[in-house]
């Protein structure tokens, strides 16, 4: 490190030449403007790389981030849509000494807070001794009375603990907030690290940065050891409020990284004082629950009865000692800002030592003198709720008008106990890449601790967050701030441990996969259906557009009318080319076709199907490989212009189509055709990944059943609406049907260019070697239903009987007979067979859903009623 040349960051050409000095403590530069020594390796590496190369690599990384959907649903965002996590590539570099000071301070604090919790949920001596005002307990929604007296092994109340820390102008660290209730951010810190290490591998290596994986291993070990039963191989679940939650991405990400099952309240049930996971194959006991629900929402029976996300009976099973919950319910109490001014005395009393890392100066208004202090210094105070409660945003005194300040003072006087005033810390600054320039931003770091043996271990890093501009001290994602990776330098050789490698403990080999929650099976099934629905629509649309663009009009292509009608039937998008006004639309089909592609508000449109597909994929995010997820994200059709910020990144090629479509009305059908071509390839990629990368377990089975069912439906629908009524010269139509069903090549190889209905029907209906034929789908379905988990019954299950009966009907059908027409030019045998099959398929779907997925009691977030055709 010392051999590096001294760097003059202000020199022309340095990426940092425009980096401004402010009055705050700066993480990178000392008070004379010289580079702090622990930043030297990074700055040197960055100067070698150059700003333009950094910017270029960063553009690539942003693409990765978008695909990974590192998102944060900001509450204030009226759309509630996924917003990419604003990450910037310049880490905060933390010196070894600072890292050690933070570690010591936070471990002490976490120990102290555990003692406070043990007293609160036990003897409550601190109140009687006058160290804790009774109001802070009794008037605190974070104190959960039903959890009082629950025995917590070794009084470990904080298996996970996080603290927001900031640094004042004199270099001192301060704790700004304590987090014990589902502390979020550790997963984002991990994601930031992975992105950054991938973007700047050389820089990362040269800087000797401590790895995060050991911390997560501690988390896993700590949680495993909590298990009351099966301590060798406990089942640990991560309980999430669900995909609509702020930090759902992180829940899914962490669950996958740590190897826990991601569950929602509805996936769990309590029987005989034990918590079970509802799996396809039955109930499996759960040993440890890592919950991301607020404490009070975890059990609607004994805690907040209005919670719909919790597990009724959970508190009872904790009483019975059959399940461990991390953190123990009620730990959220220590998030109370009202505790902060009490900590120095509590630390002396409980740990017999002075508090190492101070809290930012905080005054609880329940105390009269503190209240007066807050009221007389309101202009430089941050006013926060004194107790952990439903997210009320802090109020910055300096930003209020005199009138607003008076109103606030009135509110404080009316309910003094409910408020604290916090001194506004003049947070330190750190460099951030803004556009293509390096600027300074104010910094707040969330540090993470996990209980480990009889102490804690601290994540060597953390989630750094920065202000949106250099003028504001407000650091929050809700107001548009960004995040960063945090690099804590290593004292020696960096441990290259990774959780993705085998751990020291031997693991029992397992090929099982019964761990599929019924809800996940349901979502995978519908994912399969939607993917295939999209493909069916794309193929038919493409077949139509090819014909429309090659010729100058509908009149030149007689088979078009039939195809357009089939399209309306296929997507159930009446009236379309069938119902009222069909004649006009058939004569000029462009408008209707574009609407069927791009109109997301229209049920059955390609865009609506893709949206449903992505929504359902999001719910099983943790069960899809990264590559599969990427394919699905890229299926996005042109976004509605009004929903997106005008971000150049987001204006992909496809966005241009929708702009054309919406504004200029120039119907560039050929460009839409190119888009459909791309989609066919992406959908094929999904199919390939599912085929090649998913283990043949129940999850894959349900996904594939969904696809096979939907494809059967498409094939039946296509044939029923094209070939049942015979046309005078059927050649072009037969060719189109073969092409849409992706079977032209096979046909040509077998029959050369002789187009006859009988061989076409044979190929598309009965040929079990053709992956597009109906028989092929039924054979696959038959294999699937035979392998569904069930109690061993000697006779065939209802779903087996339906598949077998349909398959037999197809196998027994005579292609020549099917192709024969009656006097009205109708093929009666074909008609009868298809209408029978068309009736069988929905029954099969119903049988599977009621048999296996009916105890899915959660509201399913699928499309509208009309999308669920078979339901």
């Amino acid at each position, binding site marked *: 490190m010392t051999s590096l040349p001294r760097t003059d960051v202000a020199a022309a050409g340095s990426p940092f030449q425009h980096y401004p000095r402010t009055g705050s403590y700066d993480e990178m530069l000392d008070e004379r403007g010289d580079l702090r020594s622990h930043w030297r390796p990074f700055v040197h590496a960055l100067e070698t790389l150059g700003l333009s190369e950094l910017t270029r690599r960063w553009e690539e990384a942003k693409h990765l981030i978008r695909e990974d959907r590192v998102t944060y649903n900001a509450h204030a965002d009226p759309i509630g849509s996924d917003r990419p996590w604003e990450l910037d590539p310049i880490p905060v570099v933390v010196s070894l000494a600072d890292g050690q000071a933070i570690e010591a301070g936070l471990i002490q604090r976490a120990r102290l807070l555990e003692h406070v919790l043990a007293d609160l949920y036990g003897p409550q001596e601190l109140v009687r001794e006058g160290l804790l005002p009774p109001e802070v307990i009794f008037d605190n929604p974070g104190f959960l009375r039903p959890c*009082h007296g629950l025995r917590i092994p070794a009084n470990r109340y904080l298996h996970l603990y996080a603290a927001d820390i900031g640094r004042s102008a004199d270099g001192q660290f301060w704790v700004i907030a304590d987090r014990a209730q589902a502390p979020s951010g550790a997963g984002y810190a991990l994601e930031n690290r992975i992105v950054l290490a991938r973007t700047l591998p050389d820089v990362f290596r040269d800087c000797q940065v401590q790895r995060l994986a050991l911390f997560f291993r501690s988390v896993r070990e700590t949680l495993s050891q909590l298990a009351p039963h099966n301590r060798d191989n406990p089942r640990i679940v991560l309980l999430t409020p669900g995909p609509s939650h702020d930090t759902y991405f992180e829940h899914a990400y962490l669950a996958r990284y740590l190897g826990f099952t991601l569950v929602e309240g509805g996936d769990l049930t309590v029987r*005989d004082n034990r918590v079970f996971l509802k799996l396809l194959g039955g109930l499996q006991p759960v040993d440890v629950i890592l919950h991301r629900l607020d404490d009070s929402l975890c059990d609607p029976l004994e805690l907040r009865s209005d919670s719909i996300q919790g597990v009724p009976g959970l508190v009872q099973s904790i009483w019975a000692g059959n399940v461990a919950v991390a953190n123990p319910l009620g730990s959220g109490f220590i998030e109370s800002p009202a505790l902060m001014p009490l900590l120095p005395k509590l630390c002396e009393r409980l740990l017999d030592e002075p508090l190492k890392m101070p809290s930012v100066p905080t005054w609880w208004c329940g105390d009269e003198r503190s209240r007066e202090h807050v009221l007389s210094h309101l202009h430089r105070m941050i006013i926060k709720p004194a107790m952990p409660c439903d997210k009320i945003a802090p109020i910055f005194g300096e930003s209020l008008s005199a009138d607003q300040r008076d109103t606030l003072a009135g509110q404080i006087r009316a309910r003094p106990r409910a408020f604290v005033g916090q001194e506004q810390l003049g947070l330190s600054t750190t460099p951030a890449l803004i556009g293509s320039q390096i600027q300074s931003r104010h910094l707040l770091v969330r540090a993470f601790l996990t209980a480990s043996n009889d102490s804690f271990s601290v994540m060597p890093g953390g989630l750094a967050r920065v202000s949106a501009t250099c003028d504001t001290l407000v650091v929050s994602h809700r107001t548009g701030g960004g995040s960063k990776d945090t690099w804590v330098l290593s004292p020696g050789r960096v441990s290259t441990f990774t959780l993705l490698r085998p751990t020291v403990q031997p693991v029992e080999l397992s090929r099982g996969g019964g761990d599929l929650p019924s809800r996940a099976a349901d979502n995978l099934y519908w994912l399969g259906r939607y993917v295939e629905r999209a493909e069916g629509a794309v193929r038919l649309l493409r077949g139509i557009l090819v014909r429309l663009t090659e010729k100058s009009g509908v009149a030149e292509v007689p088979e078009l009318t039939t195809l357009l009608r089939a399209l309306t039937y296929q997507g159930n998008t009446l009236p379309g080319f069938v119902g009222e006004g069909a004649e006009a639309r058939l004569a000029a089909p462009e408008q209707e076709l574009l609407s069927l592609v791009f109109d997301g508000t229209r049920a059955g449109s390609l865009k609506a199907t893709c949206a449903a597909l992505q929504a359902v994929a999001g719910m099983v995010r943790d069960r899809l490989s990264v590559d599969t997820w990427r394919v699905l994200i890229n299926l996005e059709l042109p976004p509605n212009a009004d929903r997106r910020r005008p971000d150049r990144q987001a204006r992909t090629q496809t966005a241009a189509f929708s702009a054309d479509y919406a504004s200029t009305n120039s119907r560039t059908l050929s460009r839409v055709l190119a888009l459909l071509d791309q989609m066919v390839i992406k959908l094929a990629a999904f199919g390939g990944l599912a085929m090649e990368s998913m283990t043949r377990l129940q999850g894959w089975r349900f996904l594939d059943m969904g696809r096979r069912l939907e494809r059967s439906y498409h094939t039946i629908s296509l044939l029923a609406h094209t070939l049942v009524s015979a046309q005078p010269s059927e050649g072009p139509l037969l060719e189109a049907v073969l092409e849409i069903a992706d079977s032209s090549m096979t046909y040509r190889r077998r029959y050369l260019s002789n187009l006859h209905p009988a061989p076409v029907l044979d190929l598309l209906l009965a040929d079990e070697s053709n992956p597009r034929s109906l028989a092929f789908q039924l054979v696959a379905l038959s294999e699937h239903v035979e392998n569904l988990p069930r109690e061993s019954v000697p006779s065939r299950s209802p779903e087996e009987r339906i598949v077998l009966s349909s398959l037999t009907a197809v196998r027994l059908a005579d292609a020549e007979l099917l192709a024969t027409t009656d006097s009205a030019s109708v093929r009666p045998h074909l008609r009868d067979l298809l209408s029978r099959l068309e009736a069988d398929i929905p029954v099969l779907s119903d049988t599977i859903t009621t048999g296996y997925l009916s105890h899915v009691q959660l509201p399913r977030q699928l499309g509208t009623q009309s999308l669920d055709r078979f339901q």
Partner: protein
Amino acid sequence: MIYRVSHTTTYEYGAPVLIGQNLVHLTPRTSTHQSCLHQRLLIEPVPGLTSARHDYFGNPATFFAIQEPHRKMIVTAESVVDVKRFVPHDAAGKQPWEQVRDRVANDRGPLMLDAYQFVFDSRYIQCSSDLASYAAPSFAAGRPLLEAVMDLTRRIHSDFQYDQQATTLATPLCDVLTNRRGVCQDFAHLQIGCLRSMGVPARYVSGYLRTRPNPGRPPTVGAHASHAWLSVSCAEFGWIDVDPTNNLIPSDTHITLAWGRDYDDVSPIKGVILGGGHHTVAVAVDVVEQ
């Protein structure tokens, strides 16, 4: 006085309930002037699991789970309770109400802390300036606590009308105050809210009321539901029960089941079910003197 109490609650469901978890407060608690001589809980269908414990406030509570599909659940609690005539301590209600308020707020002894916790807001009861203004005329400066409380009780009894149709569990206290109608639970919540708004600790009491039979006629059977009233802290002199629905201080006519901050802490039956569809509830309470 010894009472035999039978309390039956019948739930009928439109669709099968796959699993039902319940937490009940149906065992009379023992207190200074009451002891429970005998108690049993009969549940149909027979629960797969029953577990008894005490809640945070010291009330006996029973958790049970019915884990088989069922369309009907009958919970019958039978108890024999000995209730002594309650006579408040002479000095109890004589202290000026402000003295009780301040004593409880500043003393850190276990007894005072136990009282102090009942000054704060709870799920169904939030202090407000409206409640304080309604209470104010009864709380003249220096007035003895019991006198002030009974004046408030009398006013609630005369200002408010007993009306079973006017409110539900979800009706907020401010609506009860505005509309001046409700049932025993509303009046108990209301008076507790008034007292807490004045800084006087008050807790919610769930229980039964003796139904005095007319001379020469058999006891009224099955005509009554459970009852609710409140209890006011008199600092070191303990608690005095007050029944605003009947404008009286219960002596040996009220059988206490449980107490807490409000209904939410001590509701006789609380349950969460999976399935069930639309359901109906029927309650029958018999209180017979032995």
